[in-house]
């Protein structure tokens, strides 16, 4: 082996090392880039060669980081949602509590001067404000539901997009490996980066096939990417409640399966679904429960009183009714409607109803938040009352075994809450037989402020305070978990970067080092040339 060849191999190696270094420098801030290292080897008959430009990547650390990122993304999306409710309830001036207080204070003024038109107008004004605030809370929460529907669609689109990219990259990597012996680092980096991005939307399981192909699956094992084939998710209307979007899974055979919310864990999507079922539904139900309790309780008492025309009071508040949804796959065509029965029985929970025996009208009822199950049987007129609600089946003969329904007693009730009394004379401040100066019913209405109206257990204010406490605690816990998870993720990032990240000082040193290395090899060639000239000069 000649000095020329040895010098040349050194020059080539220095060139590759310099390229590697400059590539590292130029990609210092590129997401998903893994630091590269030129691996050199001594040649058998002298000289040096680069056997590989190796990317510094540890699959174990990367998948740990992805898992952690996924959890953090879920907590992030949960936190950003729950903070909105936390902010809604934080309002000291126009929250529900002060408006309820103002409403009852207006009833006190009515009791003091029952025939004074100004006092009566005060009650109507306070009732208008209060009902408007209930509706505004409801519409805020409903906007959040709509927002979540939209975000589920966006998340699913992002996920599908990445699943397709992964399948394509799997193909390209296999092809490149077949033709070039090994796959280019850039393709491998890109694929790992996409898995990392996917983790921000959804927690997935990754398994490596033949050391070359990434197979991706949901936590329950349903495949999302196998080799070069991607399956897709879909945002679809829930079969139990068509107003909400859930995640559907398109299997290879063209069937779409509705995925239980619990299957989707982690990532922005998992956080959204968890927030919706754990907090948003509950808050909406609670606000609805308070609205129903106030409206029905107040109406009952108001109708016992006498207005200025000498008539019994009319209902004071309008309120929505319980909603029952028929599952889309029901074999029967019966329609169930529901109305409020004894409001002391209301729980604020939703219920799943399944027809056990259509012939006898036997229903299995499951309380969704606690899982408590009980059975009930429709009476002769197709009715069944439980938990403060009375169900009515339009035609029990149309029920089929196994049909299912979902009952949401208070979810949407606050939306329709309104003040029905606009004529000051129609406020029933008087007791039975009373005249204009009679304030007995006004006093009775005022007493509702402390009455256990909500589920027979709590006053309106207590119920609101417990809602605020619940949301506060939930927000607080999620915030703390999120901070802890962020710290944990940051540590993993440091570990991952410690291996795979570029350090500019190191690269600066390498740049100098390889420059000198290049110069030294060039010198080798120069010396070889001088030596050759010397030999050639001997002849002359």
């Amino acid at each position: 082996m000649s000095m020329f060849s040895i010098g040349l191999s050194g020059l080539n190696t220095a060139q590759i090392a310099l390229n590697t270094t400059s590539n590292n420098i130029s990609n210092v801030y590129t997401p998903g880039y893994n630091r590269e290292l030129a691996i050199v080897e001594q040649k058998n008959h002298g000289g040096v060669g680069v056997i590989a430009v190796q990317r510094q990547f540890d699959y174990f650390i990367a998948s740990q980081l992805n898992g952690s990122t996924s959890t953090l993304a879920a907590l992030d999306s949960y936190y950003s949602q729950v903070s909105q409710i936390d902010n809604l309830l934080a309002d000291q001036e126009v929250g529900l509590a002060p408006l309820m207080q103002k409403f009852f204070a207006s009833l006190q003024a009515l009791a003091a001067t029952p025939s004074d038109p100004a006092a009566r107008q005060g009650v109507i004004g306070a009732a208008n404000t209060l009902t408007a605030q209930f509706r505004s809370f409801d519409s805020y929460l409903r906007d959040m539901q709509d927002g979540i529907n939209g975000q589920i669609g966006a998340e699913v689109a992002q996920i599908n997009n990445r699943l397709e990219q992964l399948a394509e990259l799997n193909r390209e990597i296999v092809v490149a490996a077949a033709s070039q012996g090994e796959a280019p680092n850039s393709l491998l980096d890109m694929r790992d980066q996409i898995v990392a991005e996917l983790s921000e939307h959804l927690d997935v399981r990754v398994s490596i096939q033949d050391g070359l192909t990434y197979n991706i699956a949901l936590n329950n094992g349903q495949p999302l990417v196998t080799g070069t084939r991607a399956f897709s998710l879909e945002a679809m209307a829930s079969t139990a409640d068509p107003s909400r979007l859930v995640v559907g899974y398109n299997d290879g055979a063209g069937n779409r399966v509705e995925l239980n919310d619990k299957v989707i864990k982690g990532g922005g999507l998992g956080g959204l679904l968890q927030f919706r079922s754990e907090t948003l539904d509950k808050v909406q139900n609670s606000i609805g429960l308070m609205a129903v309790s106030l409206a029905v309780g107040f109406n009952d008492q108001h109708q016992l009183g006498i207005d200025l025309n000498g008539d019994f009071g009319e209902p004071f508040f309008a309120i929505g009714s319980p909603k029952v949804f028929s599952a889309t796959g029901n074999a029967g065509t019966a329609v169930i409607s529901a109305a409020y029965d004894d409001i002391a029985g209301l729980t604020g929970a939703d219920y799943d109803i399944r027809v056990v025996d259509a012939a006898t009208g036997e229903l299995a009822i499951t309380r969704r938040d606690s899982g408590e199950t009980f059975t009930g049987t429709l009476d002769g007129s197709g009715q069944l009352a439980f938990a403060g609600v009375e169900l009515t089946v339009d035609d029990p003969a149309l029920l089929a075994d196994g049909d299912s329904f979902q009952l949401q007693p208070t979810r949407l009730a606050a939306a329709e809450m309104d003040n029905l009394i606009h004529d000051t004379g129609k406020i029933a401040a008087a007791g039975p037989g009373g005249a204009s100066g009679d304030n007995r019913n006004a006093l009775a209405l005022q007493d509702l402020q402390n009455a256990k109206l909500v589920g027979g257990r709590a006053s309106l204010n207590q119920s609101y305070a417990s809602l605020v406490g619940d949301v506060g605690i939930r927000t607080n816990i999620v915030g703390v978990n999120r901070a802890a998870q962020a710290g944990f993720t940051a540590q993993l990032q440091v570990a991952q970067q410690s291996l795979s990240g570029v350090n500019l000082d190191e690269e600066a040193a390498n740049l100098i080092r390889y420059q000198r290395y290049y110069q030294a090899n060039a010198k080798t060639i120069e010396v070889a040339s001088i030596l050759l000239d010397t030999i050639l000069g001997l002849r002359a």
Partner: protein
Amino acid sequence: MRISTLTMFDQSVSSLHRQQSAFLKVGQQIASGRRVLNPSDDPQAASLALGVSQSLAMTQQYMDARVSARNSLSQEESILNSISGAIASAKTLVVQAANGTLSDADRSSVATELRGILETVLGQANATDGNGRYLFGGYQDSSPPFERNASGAVYHGDTNNRELRIDSSRLMGVADNGVEIFQSVHSSAGYVARADTDNAGSVTFIGPSVIDAGDPDYGNNFEITFAVDGGGNISYSIDGGPDTTYQPGQPITFGGLSLSLEGVPADGDSIAVGPAGEMDPDLFATLQNIIDVLESPAQTASDKARLRNTLNTSMRELDNSLDNVLTVRASVGAKLNELDAVDGVGSNRILNYRQTLSDLVDLDLVEALSEYSLRQVGLQAAQKTFIGLSDLSLFKLI
């Protein structure tokens, strides 16, 4: 350990974020004066604060109720004062009218004065509050409770009294109806005797006075009826009982009472005797009776007897009425005192609730300001670190 350039920048930046958000939070707390801005800042305090603010609002509500109760009761008190004054004047006039030396014309002028008093009292009975609601009609507050008629005034109101919740467990009556003020007597009022207006004789009475409250018939109503037989013998019977010979000047006794009779009754004349509360007490009727009798000529013995009897009965009725009005006024005064007492407790409670509320959610400013400076220093330090770090590069040296 190998540290990547990205890590160095990331960590500096996230430290800047952390310091900034902590700084901002303290700033928000100071600007709002509240430690608990969102329920999540302290869920338990936020939830407790709602309970306390409800208690505070209700205490304030009761305080408002007391203000309006005090208004009503003070107004009632001043009206009752003027009514008791009017009754006292009426009594003086009755004493004056009883003077036997007055002529018909003199009596008529006394009657004119009494008519003025009656109108005054009627005006007070139909008094309204600032909103034009009648005070003494019970629940019937939209029309005058008393209407003038020939026998005094007729009451159109009811017997209810409006109440207000002036404290969590206290409903207080804030008005008294016309019946209680003008058509009632105090439970301790004694007996009243009233000669029948159609009496043709000249019998007059003094009394009745109680001689034996333990008598089994004590407390009943009695009717003394006189009979004159063909021989001119006068007898009387009580409630249709046995005839007893009438002896003028001799007191007769029945049911624990004693009644002195004078003069000569005609056949069929009668005198009713009963507990004051059962003799249809009515201040307006009493005044009207006096006016009527004073405006009638008192020439015959029977006229004079009617004059004496009416003034006699009316004097007792006026006494009873005055007692009654003073009793009602005393109860109003007691209620006003109670309002003051409850107000004192209420203001204390409001102070306590405010303090509790402040302890729960308000900011300790001193602590917050020192935190603010601390965070400021922290943020500045993080910024300096960043600048220093970004300045450190081998590339600067080669």
